[in-house]
């Protein structure tokens, strides 16, 4: 498995946190909220394949076909 994706997700998390703080300081709570949501969606899109793999593995391990 590629370990790079973990670092990528961590970097996105840090960035989103900083952007969130900057926007909150400027008094734009709605946009801060939107950024957080965007970050979550981007990360979800990145890991959706991995989650699929995980479910497949679980099914195959416990023979839940």
């Amino acid at each position: 498995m590629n370990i790079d994706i973990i670092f990528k997700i961590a970097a996105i998390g840090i960035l989103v946190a900083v952007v969130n703080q900057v926007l909150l300081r400027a008094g734009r709570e709605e946009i801060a909220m939107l950024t957080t949501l965007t970050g979550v969606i981007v990360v979800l899109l990145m890991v959706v394949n991995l989650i699929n793999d995980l479910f497949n593995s679980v099914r195959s391990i416990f023979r839940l076909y």
Partner: protein
Amino acid sequence: MFLKIVSSISIVVCCTLLGIHMSNRYDRRIYNIRVLQSILINLETEIVYYSTLLSQAIRNSTRNLEGDWKNFFLEVADILEYKKDCSFAEVWKETLQGIKNCPYIGKGELDIMYRFGLQLGNSDRLSQRKYFEIAQQQLKTEEKNALQLHFRYGKMYRSLGLLLGLGIAIILL
């Protein structure tokens, strides 16, 4: 790998420049308001004390100044000189429409100038002076608002530009 690094750096640099450009808009707006105040002070002297012809008064009062409002006033003076069949209010309105989309000029100043232009030349000197004073006061309020916006959003846009660039670079990497 080399190509990736170069393109990421260019993305970050472009986004940072974009952020700086956005935050400079606030700077430039404050500058424009201050220039407008100087122009109005000069124009008041020209009209109330020297009684110069309006187009010439506008030209004299914008001398030695820069900025977007200077271009506006010069355009008004040009139209006043070459288009003799228009009233001043019509010329003023038309030219204001042209400057409406300038990103460095706020809606507040536009409204103030719109009202000011419609009253210019309609009454005696004493009331003219009062109109100038009112416009100056309103412009001062507008300047304060612009300063507040500058402090609030100027820094925000600067850091957001850099962070957005970093975000895009990380996602694409």
